[in-house]
């Protein structure tokens, strides 16, 4: 398997030969930040296009197909439209918080985005409590949403933001518990090690069989709720709250919320593919050496993106199947069903690990 750290090491040595170490690290940080921002924008565009097409197909429509071949330029057109729009300044809003909110949301999702394992050796943020870091920084987004609701000084955004706060904090528990379940199996929180382990011993969803599968399903449900999507899009609830917490935003400030929504979807899917489906680890079947060789020939980035987009498709499938829930249903789903199930599942996984029942 190709190791990306060869390239990063080469770049590091090259820079060291020209500039002192502090400058080299500074340059590398700037480069990494540029790469993150570029990838962020590219994936947002890809995901928005994918969402519109898949939504159309689920509803027996064709989706965008007028701008460019198969509507490929539609999202670019939308992005340019949004860039040109004026950012409206409203009276009687808390201007500072109102303008700060989208950056909170976008920064939180970019930080989480940087944790994804793209390839062997291609991690941007990787340290021994990686999963904790992901959980922590992905929760910062809710601060941005609450600020957006509060700073807008308007009833719909405030209701949307409050709903969002209740919902995200609730579903964070399920996400945390399912991740704990998987950490119980892997024994490490470092993302690169989790993936290395799966590359060596098989994907977690196969290793952990029943509890891992239950955790995966719960993650799919809670992940959609975390992204404020699907049946859990109460914070936006366009039929009740116009647009929820971002009602009062326009132009690129709205665009940041929009980007963050889709990137959160990608991140949720990327984390699912990392901890359940093996990240960049290729599919290996014990005993079939020829098959394994072919699978090894596919680059890790393709594996990672393939799995991630597969999970994104599952999320979208879920989203376009189910109608929006009521707020009390959402909370009772989490507190009465998902959380007890994931707690029982954690115990089950602990038993599986204790008795070495995993594959």
């Amino acid at each position, binding site marked *: 398997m190709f190791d990306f750290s060869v390239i990063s090491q080469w770049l590091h040595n090259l820079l060291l030969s020209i500039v002192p170490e502090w400058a080299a690290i500074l340059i590398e940080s700037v480069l990494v930040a540029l790469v993150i921002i570029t990838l962020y924008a590219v994936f947002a565009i890809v995901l928005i296009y994918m969402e519109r097409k898949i939504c159309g197909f*689920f509803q*027996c*429509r*064709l989706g965008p197909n007028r701008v460019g071949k198969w509507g490929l330029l539609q999202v670019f057109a939308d992005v340019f439209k949004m860039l040109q729009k004026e950012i409206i300044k409203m009276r009687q809003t808390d201007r500072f918080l109102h303008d700060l909110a989208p950056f909170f949301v976008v920064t939180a999702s970019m930080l989480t985005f940087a944790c994804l394992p793209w390839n062997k050796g291609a991690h941007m943020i990787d340290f021994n409590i990686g999963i904790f870091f992901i959980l922590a920084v992905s929760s910062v987004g809710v601060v941005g949403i609450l600020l957006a609701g509060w700073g807008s000084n308007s009833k719909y955004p405030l209701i949307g933001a409050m709903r969002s706060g209740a919902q995200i904090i609730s579903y964070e528990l399920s996400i945390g518990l399912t991740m704990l379940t998987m950490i119980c199996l892997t024994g490490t929180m470092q993302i690169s090690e989790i993936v290395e382990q799966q590359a060596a011993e098989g994907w977690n969803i196969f290793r952990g069989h029943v509890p891992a599968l239950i955790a995966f399903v719960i993650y799919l449900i809670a992940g959609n709720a975390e992204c404020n999507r699907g049946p859990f899009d109460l914070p936006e609830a366009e039929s009740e709250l116009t647009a929820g917490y971002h009602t009062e935003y326009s132009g690129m400030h709205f665009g940041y919320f929009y980007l963050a929504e889709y990137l959160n979807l990608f991140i949720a899917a990327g984390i699912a593919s990392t901890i359940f489906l093996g990240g960049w680890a290729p599919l290996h079947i014990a005993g079939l050496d020829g098959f394994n060789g072919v699978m090894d020939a596919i680059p890790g980035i393709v594996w990672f993106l393939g799995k991630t987009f597969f999970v994104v498709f599952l999320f979208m*499938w*879920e989203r376009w*199947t*189910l109608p929006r829930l009521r707020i009390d249903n959402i909370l*009772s789903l989490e507190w*009465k069903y998902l959380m007890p199930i994931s707690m029982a599942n954690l115990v089950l996984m602990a038993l599986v690990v204790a008795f070495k029942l995993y594959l």
Partner: protein
Amino acid sequence: MYQDKSYFSGLFCGIKSICIGLKTTMREFFTPKITEQYPENRKELKMFDRFRGSLTMPHNEKNEHKCVACGICQMQCPNDSINVVSEMVEVDGKKKKQLVRYEYNLGSCMFCMLCVNACPHDAITFDQSFENAVFDRSKLIKQLNKPGSKVAEKPMPARPAVAKPAAKDAEASVAQAAPDQAKAEKPQPATDEATEAKAEN
């Protein structure tokens, strides 16, 4: 929140119904899409049969239509979109109404189809054409009868109740359709009406 099922049966019912929903959407995902890409498929686009495009008066190959210029459609039209211009001509010593112009204003038509339903001779119908854009409102006023056309010689009896032999069948069907208590009184006035109608003609 009301509770009609126990915790576990509710949970499994929910899972089952979600699976049904997911199956339905997945099937929909792979079905051929119903979107019509209009300007591109203009050649092969076929509107459904009940589509109300614009009012037409079908003519047969001898350039004959079925309109007897009775003007019922004009009376039925809520928007005054129809204007039947007729003249009285004398044929074999009998005075007879004859259609001169059947004017139809597409611009004010609301496609309610009352005219078509009211027509006793099925002389008018809606066709499937829908490309109605013109640059001038006056072009929306159309003459439906073709120049030089005339009414068909022996119009098909549109209402069987009018003709004598068919009257009994019509009565029978009316009696069957009518509620039971109406059955006893119905035949007598119905025959009277039929004969009166015959006499008027």
